[in-house]
Structure formats: structure tokens, C-alpha cells
């Protein structure tokens, strides 16, 4: 399957051409080359996926180049394709191709277009290297490569201080996770003597009962390795504790949020856990850890999502929360369900982001939902797309009839958590159900605030600017402003190159679950995965045996969330204000995102700076220099004593001391 070489490297070549050509090349060639490369990759990826769906494809490894050989440690550049990779290939290339296309419209006014498209393609290349890795180090290469692209794209508008801060934060917080990942790789090599993923997974069962020394204590080997690696996953996938960068990453252009911070990069952690599932299966403790972190994140992020007013931040916290679902699915052993949710989520969350981008585009860069309202008539196609995304994320559907994408994957995850029967499984189930309620609430809240009610556009500075610019110096224009809250602004539907991706992704959000659920989730899906991940049939059986109440619970909370949101934001719009006034503390706690940023600032950022200054001014200058070179008399006396000792009769020593003395004297003369 040499098409994989084209799939992976076409985006790289395109990125190099567009990036180095930059302004000399011009916007149109850069757009054409990058988008063309991505569509080529996409078109080549689907046949691979379909071949695996049909059950007649085998795992293949395409060697590219030797990388590092150091003693027993050997790893090479190679592209491995199995079912798990095939899933990621279609997700990454499809969403990326659509996002490239969408950016034609969304970034049309941007003078720095070639750079943007180069970054997007570079990202795609790194992501593809990540998912095709057959050793941990290449995975780490992709891991860091997507981090670099993410950094560059978050900071794309580098004139904005907030964008620069967010970009840097994303990179540094991810590096905290990478610390775990790197130590995990080191430990893996120590234990297995290799970093080849197939070899590790093959040898993993041998770990049973073994222990490893770590930081002076002894722990279960698999637990140490898995938790270290999982810390890496927590960083990349923005899990509780290392999530703080993701909401800030919304500083990047919206297509970036859709591609990187929703559909692909942030799911790399889930992919890693699934890829290494045979290793994780060796450590119940690590799986418990994964489950608890995932479940906590899915709850925690959903609570914050209910209070945010920036449309992108709501979706960002939603992403964080949905990633939590994927992780606890993996934690309870339902890797297929985790991957399926990753798959469906990629479509509907990319759709939601691109839809939000279309709204922002229509509303002249205004992102605050408080200044939206009544938009459905103005931008009906965007509205339809956002509805499809919302129906998918909230999991609307009826068993055995039809459901939107999220219905299949989320319900499967919740059932699996319950069916696991362990305490953490039940905890995850409870958290997941509660988060589903919140998901439904904040998703519909977003729809109502944006598309329904009366327009509140006149309060937006962006809109005011737009209107002012449009009217120029014509003072009469102001009289035209009716008291309908529109400020005389006319939102326009987005151009076709933005609407087409929305349409395609809407198809995904509507049908992806229905069409692909059998392949990912049924008893027969073992033939699809072919050992690419641990396919746990007992979990699957248990899922079918869960009580009816458990099966209907997600549906129930989904309806409840819808009703609450409908009442609070459509029927009685005064209610949210009254509620926040009544429960001010809780509201502020959620609005301020549980005060994580403030805590980290006080715990890490400030102390690091203060310590740096201390070590510099007190350590280096105050102690080392003072008692070192600046204690000149002391040094000179010591040096002369040393010179006396040198008079040992050797010709060399005289020659040297003379040489040194001579040069010292000469340089003294020259230097002054």
C-alpha cells in the first residue's frame, strides 16, 4: 500500500511549498496546492478504510528511513496501517480537507494566507505521522509536531498578545504531559528493550506480576508505564489538570479550532491509549486512573460549559468533556466505543466549530453569544448545520430505528461503563449521565442564544464598528437604527466554499453513527479491528444485558436538558439572570473555570519567575561571583601558590607558565 506514502507526505510537500513560497508565491497557488494535496490524501484514505471495513485488508508497514540506532535501541521512520490507523486516516484527512476548503472563505480577507495554509498542512502531516507510527518515538514525533503546528496556529494572529500567550501556554502545558510521555518511553525501553509498538504489545502479557523501581519505590511495572504514558495523553487531550490550554487555544482562527482542537489533535491521547490497549489491559490500576480522570473531566468541563458566553469556549469545554467520555470508555475496556466516539465526535464537533465560525463570520467577528439572537432567519443554512451538530452531540435517537451520530457512540460508552460493574465504572456512568444532562443543556443554550429570541446585536462593539464603517461619515445612518436590537446590521450567509464543508460534515453528523455503528460496536467488529486494539467481547455482552433504565437514561437526561434550556432561554429568558444572582458563588466558580488558571499562576508561574530571579541575583551574582572571581585577592593568592608548586623541574611547566604569563602580559597591553 504505497498510497500511504502519498497520503502522509503530500501535505508535507504542500506545506513546504506554501510556507517557503509565502508571499512570493501568492495566496491562490498556496491555497490550491495545500487544499489539493489534502483532497488527494483524503481520496486515497477512504479506500483503505473501506477495505478494513470489508474485512479484507491486512496490517501493513511501509518503511521510509532508518532514524536512530544506539546499541539495542533502534527505531525507524515507518508508516504502519491497520484498522485503528485507517479510522484515524479518514478522520484526519477528511476533516482537514474540508477545513482547508472552508478556510478559503473564512480567511479570505487575511493577507497572510500562505502561512496559514502551510501551517494547516504541516499539522496534517504531523498528525498522520502520529497515527501511522509503529514505534513510540515516531508517535512522539507526530505528537510534538502537532504541538508545534497547534502553537503556530493558535498564535497565528501574532499581533494579539492574548493569542501569543495562549499559544505559549498550549505548548508549555503540553510539555508537562510530554514529560510523562518521555519517561514512559524510557521506562518502556528499559522493560521491553524496544520501542516498537507491535513488539511491546506482543510482550505486554509478560509483565504480569512484575514490579519496577521508580523514584526509589517499587511499583507494578505496567502501572508505572501506563500512567506515565497516560500523563502524556492527558496533556494532549486536555484532561483534568492539564486542560487549561484548550479553552485559551480558541484564540486561533476558527477553522483551526475545528481541525486541531476538536476533531484530530486533541483526540491523539485517546488514540494512544487505544493503540496501546494491550499494555493498558495489564494494569487495572492504570485503567482505573484513566477512568477516573476521564469521568471527572467529562463532568468538570461540562459544568463550565454551561456558563461560558463565548460561543467558541462553550464548544471548547464541550470538546474537553467529550474527550473525557472517550477516556473513561477506554478505561472500562470499551476501546471500540472510545474510538467510535472519537470518529463521530470528529464530524459533529468539527461541524459545530465550523458552524460557529460561520456565525462569527456573519456577525463580524463577534463571538459573544450575549450579543447574538434571532439569527436563524438570517443565516438559515448555518442554522441547519448547527442543528445537525447539536442533535448529534446531544445524542438524539431511538434505539433500533435511527439516531444522530452521538447517539450511538455516547450511549455505547455509558452502557459499557455501567456494564463494567466496578465501582469506578459506576462512578463514570454517573458522571457521564450527569454530563449528558449538562451537554444537552449547554448545547441547546447555545442554539437558543444564537439563533432564537430577539436580536441583541446592538450591544456588540464589533457590530457597532461594522455598522459605523458601513455608513462611513453619514450621520443619518444612525437614525436608521431601529429599536429592534439589530443596530441596522445585516448578517449574511457564508459563501459556498464555507457552506459545502458544513453540508458534508452535517451528513457525517447525521449518518456516521447509523452507518458505521455495526463495524465499530457489534460482536462482529473483531473482524474489523483485527487485533489493532483490545476487543473486549465480555464488555460487549454485558452492554446488551444492562437494565432498560440504563438504556433509557441518556435519552431521559437529554430530554431534560433540552426542556430546561428551552424554558430558561426561550420561554422565560429572565430565569438565568435570577438564577445566577441567587447562586452567585456557584456561578462565579463555574464562570471562572474552577479557578484553575489562577491557582496555576500562583503555584507555578509566579514562583518559577521568582525563583529564577532569586537564583540569578542571589545565587549567581550574590554568592558565586562574589566569592568566586570577584574575590580577586583570594584568587590571585591561590593562583600564585599553585605556580610555586609547579617548579618541579620539568621543562614543560616552565614553558607553559611562561607562555601563559607572556600571553597575559601581551593581552594586557593590547586590551588597555
Amino acid at each position, binding site marked *: 500500500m504505497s498510497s500511504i506514502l502519498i497520503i502522509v507526505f503530500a501535505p508535507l510537500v504542500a506545506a513546504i511549498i506554501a510556507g517557503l513560497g509565502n508571499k512570493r508565491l501568492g495566496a491562490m497557488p498556496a491555497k490550491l496546492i495545500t487544499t489539493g494535496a489534502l483532497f488527494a490524501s483524503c481520496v486515497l484514505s477512504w479506500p483503505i478504510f473501506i477495505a478494513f471495513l470489508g474485512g479484507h485488508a491486512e496490517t501493513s508497514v511501509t518503511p521510509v528511513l532508518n532514524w536512530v540506532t544506539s546499541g539495542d535501541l533502534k527505531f525507524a521512520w515507518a508508516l504502519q496501517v491497520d484498522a485503528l490507523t485507517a479510522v484515524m486516516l479518514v478522520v484526519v484527512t477528511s476533516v482537514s480537507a474540508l477545513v482547508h476548503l472552508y478556510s478559503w472563505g473564512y480567511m479570505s480577507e487575511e493577507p497572510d494566507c500562505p502561512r496559514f495554509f502551510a501551517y494547516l498542512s504541516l499539522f496534517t502531516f504531523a498528525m498522520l505521522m502520529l497515527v501511522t507510527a509503529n514505534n513510540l518515538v515516531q508517535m512522539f514525533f507526530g505528537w510534538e509536531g502537532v504541538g508545534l503546528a497547534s502553537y503556530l496556529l493558535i498564535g497565528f494572529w501574532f499581533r494579539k498578545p492574548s493569542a501569543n500567550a495562549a499559544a505559549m501556554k498550549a505548548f508549555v502545558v503540553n510539555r508537562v504531559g510530554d514529560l510523562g510521555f518521555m519517561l514512559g518511553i524510557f521506562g518502556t525501553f*528499559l522493560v521491553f528493550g524496544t520501542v516498537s509498538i507491535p513488539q511491546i504489545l506482543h510482550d505486554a502479557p509478560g509483565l504480569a506480576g512484575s514490579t519496577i523501581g521508580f523514584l526509589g519505590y517499587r511499583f507494578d511495572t505496567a502501572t508505572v508505564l501506563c500512567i506515565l504514558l497516560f500523563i502524556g495523553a492527558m496533556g494532549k487531550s486536555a484532561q483534568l489538570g492539564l486542560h487549561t490550554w484548550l479553552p485559551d487555544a480558541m484564540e486561533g482562527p476558527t477553522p483551526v479550532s475545528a481541525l486541531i482542537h476538536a476533531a484530530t489533535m486533541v483526540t491523539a491521547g485517546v488514540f494512544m491509549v487505544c493503540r496501546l490497549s494491550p499494555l493498558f489491559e495489564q494494569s487495572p490500576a492504570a485503567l482505573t486512573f484513566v477512568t477516573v480522570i476521564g469521568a471527572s473531566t467529562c463532568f468538570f468541563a461540562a459544568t463550565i460549559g454551561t456558563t461560558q458566553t463565548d460561543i467558541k469556549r462553550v464548544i471548547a469545554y464541550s470538546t474537553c468533556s467529550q474527550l473525557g467520555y472517550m477516556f473513561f470508555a477506554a478505561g472500562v475496556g470499551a476501546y471500540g466505543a472510545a474510538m467510535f466516539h472519537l470518529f463521530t465526535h470528529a464530524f459533529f464537533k468539527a461541524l459545530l466549530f465550523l458552524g460557529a465560525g460561520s456565525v462569527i463570520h456573519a456577525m463580524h467577528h463577534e463571538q459573544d453569544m450575549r450579543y447574538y439572537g434571532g439569527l436563524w432567519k438570517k443565516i438559515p443554512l448555518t442554522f441547519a448545520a448547527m442543528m445537525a451538530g447539536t442533535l448529534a452531540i446531544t445524542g438524539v435517537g431511538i434505539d433500533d430505528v435511527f439516531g444522530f451520530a452521538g447517539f450511538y457512540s455516547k450511549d455505547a460508552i455509558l452502557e459499557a461503563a455501567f456494564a463494567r460493574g466496578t465501582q469506578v465504572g459506576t462512578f463514570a456512568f454517573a458522571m457521564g449521565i450527569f454530563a449528558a444532562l449538562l451537554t444537552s443543556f449547554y448545547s441547546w443554550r447555545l442554539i437558543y442564544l444564537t439563533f432564537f429570541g430577539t436580536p441583541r446585536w446592538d450591544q456588540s462593539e464589533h457590530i457597532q464598528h461594522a455598522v459605523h464603517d458601513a455608513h462611513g461619515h453619514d450621520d443619518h445612518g444612525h437614525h436608521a437604527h431601529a429599536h429592534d436590537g439589530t443596530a441596522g446590521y445585516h448578517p449574511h450567509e457564508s459563501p459556498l466554499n464555507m457552506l459545502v464543508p458544513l453540508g458534508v460534515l452535517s451528513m457525517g453528523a447525521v449518518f456516521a453513527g447509523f452507518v458505521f455503528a455495526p463495524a465499530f460496536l457489534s460482536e462482529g467488529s473483531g473482524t474489523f479491528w483485527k487485533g489493532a486494539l483490545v476487543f473486549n467481547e465480555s464488555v460487549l455482552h454485558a452492554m446488551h444485558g444492562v437494565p432498560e433504565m440504563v438504556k433509557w437514561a441518556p435519552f431521559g437526561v437529554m430530554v431534560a436538558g433540552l426542556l430546561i434550556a428551552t424554558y430558561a432561554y426561550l420561554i422565560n429568558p429572565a430565569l438565568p439572570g435570577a438564577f445566577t444572582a441567587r447562586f452567585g458563588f456557584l456561578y462565579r466558580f463555574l464562570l471562572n473555570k474552577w479557578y484553575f488558571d489562577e491557582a496555576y499562576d500562583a503555584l507555578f508561574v509566579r514562583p518559577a519567575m521568582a525563583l529564577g530571579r532569586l537564583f540569578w541575583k542571589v545565587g549567581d551574582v550574590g554568592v558565586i561571583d562574589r566569592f568566586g572571581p570577584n574575590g580577586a585577592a583570594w584568587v590571585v593568592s591561590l593562583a600564585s601558590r599553585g605556580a610555586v608548586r609547579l617548579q618541579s623541574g620539568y621543562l614543560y611547566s616552565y614553558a607553559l607558565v611562561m607562555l601563559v604569563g607572556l600571553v597575559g602580559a601581551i593581552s594586557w597591553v593590547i586590551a588597555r
Partner: protein
Amino acid sequence: MTSFPILSLMLLVPLVGAVISLMSGRETARMVALCATLIDLALGIVLWAHYDIGGAQWQFQEHADLFAGFSWKLGIDGIALMLIALTVFLMPICIGASWTAIEKRAGEYYAAFLFMETLMIGVFTAQDLFLFYIMFEAGLIPMYLIIGIWGGAERIYASYKFFLYTLLGSVLMLIAMFWMVNEAGTTDIPTLMQYDFPVQAQTWLFLAFFASFAVKMPMWPVHTWLPDAHVQAPTAGSVILAGVLLKMGGYGFIRFSLPMFPVASAHFAPMVWGLSIAAVVITSLIALVQNDMKKLIAYSSVAHMAIVTVGLFAFNRQGLEGSMVVMLSHGLVAGALFLAVGVIYDRLHTREIARYGGLAINMPYYALFFLLFTMASIGLPGTSGFVGEFLSLLGIYQQSSLIALISTTGIILGAAYMLYLYRRVVFGVQVHADTAAMPDLDAREWAMMVPLAVAVLWMGVYPETFMAPMRKDIGTLEARVAIAKPRGDADVKTVSRKAAATAAVALGAARVGGVK
């Protein structure tokens, strides 16, 4: 090629160039310097091409007895070859960096540089203990002059500090060398590398050499000369200081401390680890609060060199190879970063970070190169910075997970201070009109940046080119230090009795010696 004295020729060419430029005016001197360094680069390529990978340990040997038992004895192994390659690669770039920046006493300046090239190559080729010593210490002199004469405002203090620190260490080393020659009866370095010094003597011999190498490295807490030296040195001085002179400490450890005093090395390994992790954490934090670009990069060099010492004293293959790759990579990357600073220093004549900002707007290609070198400094996979760092840290993990953990925090702190630098210099809005008016790279600057960028990526993607020549020599060294290699105390893998049998089978050769 063995009969042809290519090494002597490589030493001679810059020396002749130095003499000519000393007597020439600025225009001629720089042309002579460029030609001499390019000829040496060409000779370096020939050297590499004819180096027999996997062949004899010492190649291109030359030997001539001089007065009083003092002999002119040259020869290289793969490790030396790589460091020579680094030197001859960086030198023409340094001349290019000085092309317009140096105006006063240019003839002497280029002479100092060329003289230094001779000495640096001399250090890596010398096979006689005292020849090495002379080259090693004399290398200070031109650097001392370059800082002291062509440096910034505080150049006298900086050069004084530089000289004092480095000389102090070398006195102890010289004493130790006398003792060693007495004991072993030879000044031949390859022989000494196989000589088993008495264990008690190794302790103080090790410490004496350590005093010199630790300063050169530089290791915490004898690093404070470096920030001052870098800040005051002209751009090319910083490039060669970071690029090659800092490698002499590491080379010293590899060539002397480890093979000659393996027992003492193992004994003192915890001390080295301790100083190294202190350096990683402390100097990284200090780098975070710097307002001077060169000082920031200088402190980051200390942190990176600590990864070298950590890897060297891991006593295993990955640690040793990783350390060498870190040295080569740091030579390229730190050199490139100082060059990048020099490019904008030439335009604005300030190193103060706050005076810059928004360079991505008016200098997009500069921003791109700077980004690449920043990422390489951070150790992004695919750049040279990653390979060495990864191997070194992997090496030390096998000895101590705690040391590995603390050393690895360098990847977080490194990202923090480098990205903070990049953000303040390249991103943001253009505040100052003169900064905004700076033009992008000119042809000369492109010619300096492109080779460095290519080398950084090459070493990141296919490091085999650079690791292959050293493999055999590092294997020899590994075998040598294996005598005294400390046990990987924390991480020996043990298996409970019940599962021991199955696990042993499943793990195949169970490479970690400690499956009990």
C-alpha cells in the same frame, strides 16, 4: 591517505592564514580568513570521506619526536572527527558573521580567529598529553583577546572572569598530567586511555581533571563566566564559544576522565548527576527571567550542557551516544541562535529583548529560521536537539529514574524560556519604529543560516550520518567504563516468583541484567 599529513595541514592552513591576515588590512584579512576556513572545511570533508568507519580506532596518525620527549603526535577517532567537522563547519560561518560587524583592528581579529581554529582542531587531534594541554589552554588566549578587544562595554571584566575561571581549573589538570606521565611512563593518549591507574590515585586525578572540564563545560556552579563572556563577545565569538569551546569540556570527559579513571568516574557519578540536575533546574529558571537575549541563550547553554554530563555519566550506550549528539547539536543550534541574535544586533545594536517585537512582520524569513533554531533548542523531534536529548535522558533513566525525571523537566522549562523569548522578539506588534524598519535577511545572512538549518534538520531526521563514525569508539568507551559501571539501582526489573518464569520467556532476552 594515511601517509599524507592531512591533520597537520588542517592545523597549518589557518595558521598561515592568521599570519597573513595579521599583516593585512580589513578587506584582505577577511578574504584570507574566509579562504582559509573554506579550505579547512574542504579538508574536513576530505577527512570525513576518507575516514574508515569501523576501521582502526585511530586514523590519520602522524608522529614526530620533538625536543625533550615532547612529541608532535596527531590522530583521530570518530568522536574527534565529528568535533573537527563541527569546527570546520562553523568557522566560515563565523567569518561571515564578522564580515561587516568588525571594523577596528580587523586583521588582528581574523588572525585571532584563525589561530583559534588551529588550536581547536589541535585539541581534537592531539594524541600527546602535553600537546593536548597546550592546545587546550592556548585556545583560551585568542578567545580572551576576542572578548577583551572586540567585545561590548564590559569586555574587560568578562574576559578577566573567563580567563581566571578557565586557568584555575587547568592548573590542577596540569599537575595531574605530570603525575600520570610519571606513573604510566608515556604521554601517549591512546595508551593512557587503556592504562589502569591505581584506584586511590584515580580519585584525585579525576577531581583535578574535573576542575578543568567542569569549568569548560560549564557545569553549575562554575558557570558564571559564560553569561558574561557571551554577552560581551562579538557575535562570531559567541558562536564559536558556544559551538566549539564548550565542547572541549565534554570532549575532555570522553577522552580522559571516563576512559582513564573509570572507577573514580563511577564513584563521582552521583556528584556529577547532582550538579547536572541543579544546572538544569536553576539555569533554566534563570534563563526565564533574562532581559538580554545573549544572556538567555548563554544560560540555556548551561542547561543543555548539563544534559551532556548526565548522559556521559549514565555509563551506557544511549547515554554516551546521546551526549555526543547533544554536543554536536548544541554546537549547531546554540551557534545558530547566537547568529540569529547577531543578525538583529547588527541592525539595532542592542541585545535588550524589550527593544524588539513584531519581527515576524518585517522579517518573515528571519522569523522562520529563528523558529527552527528555537524548536531545535527545545528539542522538537525532527530537529537535531531531540535525538541527543532523548538518548541522553533515556540513558540516565536506566541508572536513576529520579535523575531522569528532574533532568527531563528541562524540556518544560526550555520550552518556557525559549518560547517566551521568541514571543517577545518575533511576535507581538511593532512598538519601535527603528525595529519595524529593519530589513529581512540579506544574501550573506541567508548563506550563513541555510547550512545551519540544513544540518539541524539532517541531524534530526537521519542522525545516522553523524552517529555511524562514532559508534565503534563509543562502544570501546562503553566497554571501558563497564568495569566500574554502577548498578541501575532504582530500575532493575524484578518479577515476583510466581510469574517469573513466564515473564522471563515473554521478555525474551530480558536485557536488563536484573531479572531475579
